[in-house]
């Protein structure tokens, strides 16, 4: 009783944070989220379900989302391990198991915040040194005037909201986002176009569409007003994803391309597609096997690698999986899924540590169990 009275606020907080019941109930809550997320995936698609239930701090406004639940689990386990688990040999297995679990959650943190995932499209005989995110967008202003390179200024996804103003010292105009929709279709403008409309906006308007379940197939579009262009080019422009002919504007005598595109990640090396091979089941058009023979180009060094459906290429932190392909009249090429995941090895390492911990716990507890069972026998005899 007296001990309880002397506890400081910090101690009380640690005692609370280390309560085993927190982990127990949080784990149950994670199962609830898993069930609802899996069911809802059918209706909102995989990407949105992941965001709504597992990557969010809150779900259904006030309930803890997956991210909050896992943070609580981490803090609880950490406090339990550091402050409430005495270093005794008979607890060694439990300590190791808890450490493995902490490592698993830490890996989840790295994956959530530092992983990148997207696609790399390479026509046969060509080389690419970047990949595009599947979902995250960006606004790119590209100065095409240098003879040997394009100067790219990419504004992150957070800039893409109505009313946002985009400017930079590297280009002499200002862009204001008038409207933005994550999935649009184009519709014709009836009658005469307003005098402030420029480019494709003179003929077309954005028609907002419902989000598709396959999130990457949504086509985002925006209306932007630009001030500071040459001549009478100032006005409202229409820009959307995958524009076959990007919007070009002129300012200060230079041409700039403005794109709304998937976020682009530059790689510290390049990948050249030598040959893409697609095999089909005999007598059908159903593909049975894809593979891409590529060169990994780093400076003057080239390494030839065959990427097939279950044999990805790993280079530095990046993994390249055979994902898809495209065929056109004159072009054929491969589509690779590229993943950079700083937490990639954590699940393997932490699983081994947890397995070791449980094994040690079992070994340590066996003599105790034997003694207990002998005592029971003696009592019953």
């Amino acid at each position, binding site marked *: 009783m007296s001990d309880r009275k002397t506890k*400081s606020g*910090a*101690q009380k907080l*640690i005692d609370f944070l280390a309560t085993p019941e927190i982990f127990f109930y949080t784990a149950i809550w994670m199962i609830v989220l898993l069930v609802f997320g899996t069911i809802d995936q059918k209706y909102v698609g995989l990407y949105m379900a992941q965001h709504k239930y597992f990557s969010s701090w809150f779900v259904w406004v006030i309930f803890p989302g997956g991210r909050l639940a896992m943070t609580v689990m981490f*803090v609880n386990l*950490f*406090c339990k391990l*550091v*402050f409430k688990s005495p270093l005794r040999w008979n607890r060694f297995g439990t300590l190791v198991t808890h450490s493995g679990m902490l490592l698993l959650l830490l890996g989840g*943190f790295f994956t959530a*915040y530092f992983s990148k995932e997207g696609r790399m*499209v*390479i*026509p046969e005989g*060509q080389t*690419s040194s970047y990949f*595009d995110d599947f979902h995250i967008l960006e606004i790119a202003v590209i100065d095409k005037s*240098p003879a*040997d*390179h*394009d100067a790219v*200024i*990419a*504004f*992150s*996804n*957070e*800039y893409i909201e109505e009313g946002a103003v985009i400017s*930079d010292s*590297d280009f002499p105009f200002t862009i204001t986002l008038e409207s933005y929709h994550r999935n649009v*279709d*184009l*519709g*014709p403008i009836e009658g005469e176009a307003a005098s402030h409309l*420029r*480019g*494709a*906006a003179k*003929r*077309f308007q954005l028609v907002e569409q419902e989000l598709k379940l396959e999130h*990457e*197939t949504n*086509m985002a579009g925006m209306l932007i007003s630009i001030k500071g262009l040459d001549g009478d080019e100032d006005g409202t422009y229409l820009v959307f*994803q*995958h*524009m*076959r*002919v990007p919007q*070009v504007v002129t300012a200060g005598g230079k041409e700039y391309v403005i794109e709304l*595109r*998937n976020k682009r990640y*530059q790689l510290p090396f390049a990948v050249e597609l030598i040959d893409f091979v697609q095999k089909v089941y005999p007598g059908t*058009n159903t593909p049975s096997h894809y593979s891409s023979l590529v060169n990994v180009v780093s400076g003057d060094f080239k390494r030839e690698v065959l990427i097939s459906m279950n044999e990805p290429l790993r280079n530095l932190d990046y993994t390249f999986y055979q994902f898809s*392909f*495209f*065929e*056109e*009249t004159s072009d054929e*090429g491969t*589509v690779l899924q590229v993943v950079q995941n700083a937490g990639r090895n954590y699940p393997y390492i932490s699983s081994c540590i947890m397995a070791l911990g449980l094994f040690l716990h079992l070994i340590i507890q066996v003599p105790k169990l034997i003694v207990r069972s002998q005592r029971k026998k003696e009592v019953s005899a």
Partner: protein
Amino acid sequence: MKLRNTALFAIVSVILSLFIACSKEPSVQKYKVSKTTVPQADVMASAGAGSDAVTDTGLPFTWVTPSNWVEGKASSMRFASYDIPLSNGETGDFSLVQLGGGAGGTMANINRWRGQIGLGPAEPEELAQVAHLHNTVQGQQYLHITLINPNNPSSAIAAGIFEQPGFVLFAKLTATAAGLEEARLDFEAFCNSIAFKNL
């Protein structure tokens, strides 16, 4: 006691710092890329991003419409009509028309289109210069034709002629010469996607 408080303070600080550091702030990235010849936007679209589903209107054939084509005004002649957004606000006009029998013959139609863009009739041997056999994804051959009047680049025509038993299907794109080039891959993708149900 002090050690516990310090450790708790350290934990809270580290966790808060991590979340603050990882919070999504608007960022601007600047970099240079060497001039590329890869038409990335075109390739991305053909690789599945933003592409439309198969259009089936109950006709004996289906097709896949490029995602940036806008449905245009239909008419009794046109099974499908699309406006194609091009640079500087221009619009390409696409039509899908079916005619019975031999539709007057391939040469007659090509010469009619040549007349529409200010060119005179072509000799059969000139056909090889403007017409090439392509294959649809279904494996059907069709004649792909590109007509450009070098003296009048404001009007050019690309066409796909699909000869079927009892009828001929014409896919036709009218635009400026530059517009035709811009929409070339989309047009080819459309033609290649046409699939006849009876096959």
